[in-house]
């Protein structure tokens, strides 16, 4: 016997049955990896993602961690163990683990581009090459940081990016990839980028010079640096005062400067600003309106400061501030943005590579390559030096160093010392000291501390050792951890 209710039920059941399978299909309203990287715009946005892990506070933390270990600096609070040179304690082990993760996240995003862009369906070869080159430049950049601080590390490229367990590669292998990537970047990156902040051919050459210098390939370093200098595309920004440095060189409102080669770019937006200002500043300086952690400090009483010529404008960027440790305490005032919008909302860019670096790399590598003082090397050094005294960078001046006063060895020392003044607070000093093998000497001289061997490398984080089965915690961890 059929009645209306039964019929209704049957209809509902039947209609539903047919609709079932269809209902179970997922139709997300977001993009997925499998159907991305097809157009130039898509690939470019994927390239943009390579920058994010670096920019998001991590590079600031990286530079600060390095800076706390410099001979002229001390770390405050949880950063204190860094200037005690006995290896990292847990707080700092954790901090560098965060950096490891950031570098590798950036590397993964680079690998995704390198692997997928060539398979794009609606992208021309030129755009593929350009974007892949940019990704390789950034991949090399990340590995350069990793290899200098951890030595051997797992070498993840587009070919093994999905292999969970990957052995540690020796530093040589890492450097080989870095150089190969940079050479390709040098070849395929444009002379000039449409947007400031993307690496150019010149950025690739600059970093190559830096890498060659690190590797002791001085002639190569010299030549690459020279190519950049000779391009005449870059010039140092002249300064007359501390505020010129704060505004015209490192200023928050600059879009770019004539000496910029590769900077991490920041702007006054929430989460898009430079975190360095919070790390650096003491609330009393009013250079930044969101307090500050005044993590890195120095002392006026130490030789580094005492021997620094008072006429050097840069010295005044190392400003006495009593942070509770007495009036002879120094805090960097290199970065200032009183109009920042939040703790990480300052507009100052992070000058990773500028012409000053290229000039000093040139000076050092040229001297080292020929083991002799050259006029070109001295001129490169003097450009940086003159600018710091308020002189026109490209014209000889009274403050110039004279060739006659220096041997190759003493000139190299002079360049290294100039780098310390020029890049104070940019995290280069510790790596320079490590590169030239003078960590122990320099620290002992200034602070009277013997640096423990294990302090020279950072520990591989537990998040790697615990889960990467190709690593043996007992033998693959850096010594002492």
């Amino acid at each position, binding site marked *: *016997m059929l009645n209306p209710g039964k019929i209704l039920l049957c209809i509902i059941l039947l209609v539903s049955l047919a609709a079932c399978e269809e209902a*179970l299909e997922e139709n997300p309203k977001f*993009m997925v990896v499998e159907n991305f990287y097809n157009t130039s715009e898509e690939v470019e*946005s994927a390239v943009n993602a390579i920058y994010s892990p670096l920019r998001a506070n991590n590079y600031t933390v990286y530079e600060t961690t390095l800076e706390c270990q410099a001979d002229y600096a001390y770390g405050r609070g949880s950063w204190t163990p860094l200037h005690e040179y006995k290896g990292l304690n847990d707080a700092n082990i954790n901090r560098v683990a965060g950096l490891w*993760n950031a570098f*590798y996240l950036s590397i*993964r995003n680079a690998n995704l581009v390198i692997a997928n862009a060539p398979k794009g369906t609606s992208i021309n070869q030129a755009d593929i090459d350009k974007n892949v080159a940019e990704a390789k430049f950034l991949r090399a950049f990340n590995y350069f940081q990793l290899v200098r601080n951890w030595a051997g590390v797992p070498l993840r490229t587009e070919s093994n990016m999905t292999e969970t367990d990957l052995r540690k590669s020796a530093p040589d292998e890492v450097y080989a990839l870095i150089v190969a990537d940079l050479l390709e970047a040098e070849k395929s990156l444009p002379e000039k980028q449409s947007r400031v*902040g993307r690496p150019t051919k010149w950025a690739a050459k600059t970093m190559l010079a830096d890498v060659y210098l690190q590797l002791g390939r001085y002639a190569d370093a010299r030549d690459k640096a020279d190519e950049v200098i000779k391009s005449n595309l870059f010039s140092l920004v002249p300064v007359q005062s501390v505020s010129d440095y704060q505004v015209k060189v490192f200023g928050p409102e600059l879009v770019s400067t004539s000496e910029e080669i590769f900077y991490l770019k920041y702007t006054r937006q929430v989460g898009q600003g430079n975190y360095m200002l919070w790390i650096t500043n003491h609330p009393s300086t009013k250079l930044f309106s969101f307090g500050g952690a005044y993590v890195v400090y120095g002392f006026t009483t130490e030789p580094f400061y005492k021997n620094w010529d008072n006429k050097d404008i840069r010295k005044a960027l190392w400003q006495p501030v009593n942070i509770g440790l007495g009036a002879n305490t120094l805090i960097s005032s290199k970065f200032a943005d009183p109009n920042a*919008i*939040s703790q990480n909302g300052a507009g100052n860019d992070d000058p990773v590579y500028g012409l000053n670096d290229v000039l000093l790399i040139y000076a050092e590598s040229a001297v080292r390559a020929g083991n002799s003082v050259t006029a070109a090397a001295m001129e490169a050094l003097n450009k940086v030096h003159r600018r710091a005294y308020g002189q026109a960078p490209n014209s000889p001046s009274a403050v110039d160093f004279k060739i006659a006063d220096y041997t190759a060895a003493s000139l190299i020392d002079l360049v290294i010392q100039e780098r310390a003044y020029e890049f104070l607070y940019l995290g280069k000093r510790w790596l320079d000291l490590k590169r030239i093998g003078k960590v122990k000497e320099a620290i002992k001289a200034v602070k009277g501390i013997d640096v423990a061997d294990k302090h020279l490398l950072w520990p591989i984080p537990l998040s790697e050792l615990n889960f990467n089965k190709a690593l043996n915690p007992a033998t693959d961890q850096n010594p002492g951890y």
Partner: protein
Amino acid sequence: MKKNLLTRKMWGVLMRVSFLQLLFMGFLASLTYAVDSEAQLLEKRVSLNLRNGELSLALQQLEAQTDARFVFSPQVINSAKRLTLKFNDEPFGKVLNKMLRPLNIKYEVSGNYILLNDAQSKPIDSREFGLLSIPVLPIDLKISGKVTDAGNNEPLPGVSILVKGTQRGTTTDQNGRFSIDIPDQTAVLVFSYVGYKAKEVAVGSQARLDVSLETDTKALEEVVVVGYGTVKKSDLTGSVAQVKAEEINSFPTANPLQALSGRAAGVQVTQNTGAPGGGVSVRIRGTNSIQGSNEPLYVVDGFPIFGSNPTVLNNADIESVEVLKDASATAIYGSRGANGVVIITTKQGKTGRTKVDFETSYSQQTLRKKLDLMSGQEYATFYNRQAVNDKLKPYFTQDEVNSFGEGFDWQNLVFQKAPMKTTSLNINGGNDKTKFSVSGSYFGQDGIIKGSDYNRYSLRTNINHQVSKKFSVSLSNTLSRLKTNRRDSDGGSRGNSMISAAVSAPPTLTPYNEDGSYRILAIAYPFVATDLINPLNFINEQSTEINANRILTNAALIFNPIPELTIKIAGGIENADDRTDSYTTRNFFNSPGRASASSYQFTSLLNENTVSYNKTFNQLHSISAVAGFTYQDFTTKTLGGSGNGFLSDITETFDLGSAITPGIPSSGYAKSVLVSYLSRVNYSYADKYLLTASIRRDGSSRYSPGNKWGYFPSAAVAWKVANEDFLQNSPNISELKLRASWGLTGSQAINAYATLNELNAGRTVFDDAMYTTFSPGTRLPGNLKWETTEQLDFGLDLGLFKNRLLFTADYYIKNTRDLLNTVILPSSLGFTSTIQNIGQVQNKGLELSLDSRVLTGAFKWNLNANLSINRNKVVKLYAGEDILGGNVNVVVINDVTSILREGHPIGSFWGYAEDGYNEQGRIRYKDLDGNGSTSQNDKTFIGNPNPKFIYGLNSSISYKGFELTLFVQGVQGNDLLNVSSIVNTMDHGFGLNMTRDVFLNSWTPENPNSKYPLISRNTNARVSNRFVEDGSYLRLRNIQLAYNAPVEQWGINWLRSAQIYVSGQNLLTLTNYSWWDPEVNSRGGGNSTAQGIDWNSYPTAKSTTVGVRIGF
């Protein structure tokens, strides 16, 4: 005969209602016969002096002295016979013997009725009896009276009354009254009413006939709600625990689930934090899933709701909560049944007089326990010691140290006394066609942290209407409005969250500067951690308000073509509209004014089509079956905006466009669909052998193609041993049932789209502008299928002494396989985790529960107890590899805390074993791998967050109108990882306040066996056994003294009941746990690898409550 006597006895009791009896009846209707006062009656001393009088006269005298009433047929008493009797203060029974035996009259006592029978004649027939006290009247053709419910003495409207053997009949009116003409005195009236036993009453000579109907023993028997139906408790083949309204509503809780704690065996309820409206985690029979949620499925009035914690309801709305535990009960919910199912039934309308119930209560809450922290002087001394130990100049001079004294008590500043209020009004009634229940209720709780609160306003309507004989409709609607202000900034370290700041703020400092501004703690001393924020910032200058509208509505059309067949088409909507407004004022430390507003819209549509069939053949074979098809979808849409930098705090979150830097807007969408076929058959033979079998086929959109469908069958058998002949007449065993069940259930452990490799958008900067970035998240997606839990359950139900003692035991084994799990990846992959179907987990356990009526009668004592033991272990993991989880980062420690390893309990704490101190007072860790240094190879098992057993005990004593209820609940043998204490006992050197024992008992060369290491900013703390504490506790969750006014005695007709009570919650907690409270679970309930962690959670309160409950 016996049954007749019983009914008569009940009737009699009701005719002479005293308050006590009413109470008696009201609470234990089914058991009155178990406590006969017959013996007492016959012991009563009486005197009798009859000189040549009629027997009836003697009976009248005796009636006057006792409560007894004599029932007899006129023939028994030969009125012509004259007697002379004299008894002085002798037992009633003896008097009766001496008086009646010579007259050849037998007597039988039933309650306070004494039936007199001619010893030779057949026993008295009810048709013939008359009451002595009512004069025997001539036959009157009109008879009237009232019909009431024997259980609660409520009038019953609509009872049909038929003169037996005729067509003549009537029904009772709204007040249960009737009037009917009868042909003669020999007429028998048949009273019948659905759900009640029909009753035949001989009219005899009475003009007025008050009848009480007993609920049908079968109907009377408790019915429990199961998936897609109900079943008599005695016919249950599975393991189901029931918690009644009275227990759920016994003390105020923000979340009905909190009221379940300790009430049902096998159900562990943990309040995650003490924040008003804070989450509650519920575990039924242990933890099954590693990746997925372990929270049960909640089904409200048949609607499987989304997520855990059904916040739509107030406790007062709930009629009962059924917890389905074994696979036989849960498999009908298929892929959502693995963690158990909690079925919540709201109050339904009942036929009869319209009832109005009003309840209100007021509670005062206070912080349950303050932490013992350093005083100002101790603080300064402590940091001087630290400075000296770290070779620095002391921070404070001795004069400064001395001047600090006790210092400022930040806990007193942050924690306050706070009220909690509940009010509810429920009106319910109906007739034989329409039944309704309408209620409005309010729950309001202020938090013990200033500024926090939780308010719920709830309106509920349930309507059932019989359209025709074959069609009926039902509608159930709940609308709730939630409004809550959060001040539960927790977790964190070094005072960068509210809770952490409340503990860490230096006692040497006050909250305000001279000029009234907030003191900036971070720069107060050079050594203070930069993270430390004045807690007043969080309290006064940061607000998060959530306003939510929740709708749960369910309608069904029910069609009964034949009585045995029910076809039900139901549709339901669950809707949540949440809006969250967060604002940080310009006055907050380093804030230019920060605003964010977000909305969350969730809708679930449900369609359920079921056919059920119930039939008994030949009075032996009883079948009930249900089959159906269901569709449910779940759609979430989110929208958020923010802004940074405001010129004024006035606009709060309501003018984001005016922000100096408007944030990037966000929005999201997710939809998943679940399609299911289900069926179940219950078969019972001779009410002795029961069989249940069910199967559900679920298809979910969330899984990878090819793995979308899963089958979830179950089967159960039960043997009602007590119904076998050999036990039928057992004097002691009133119920005995053995049960066994097996089944498969699933867990939807993943979210929508989890198998897809999603790209997340972000921003980066070139030039001075922002550009979009697209990259995958840090979780690598995988190809996934269902998790399956196979469960075996053996159960025993035993009732003794007419069910005065009810005992239930269940033993179960659950094996969960194809576990979905987050697999941590080496961070060099860029992806930090992925999900895989790996491994196997086992839970097995024993549940015992006991319901007893220890004392009945005027002085009543009910005692319910339950105890559950669960043991779980990880049986198999992918390639046997450990899974680490529960990462904590509190600066001094940033490491995993928990491990899953084959053969060990889920979520065991994993860390270093301490081995005293070295000569410098630094912690030594056991070098378990013997390599001479401390590395993660030295980690070991340092604790187990899973309790050895959990228990609950409820004792209720009543006498006259007074009731004293004690409810004790506890957890035994679990460990807690006290992350809160890491910073405030070990993170020296950053100006944070510490517990006093750190000050008193730290390492010095003179005190090398101290509790804490050398005070130094370089403490080498690790996740170690130091932070693992015994989390066992026994808590007096509620103690209540109530007085029920004897409204009946007072003759107030419009008042049905009135109760006033005072109660206390959490007044007593026995525990060795050192921090705020052992009932804590900072990481929430869903996960498996980070259980038992206390990380600066909002502390628990204790409270005292007064309240009234009135029924009209």
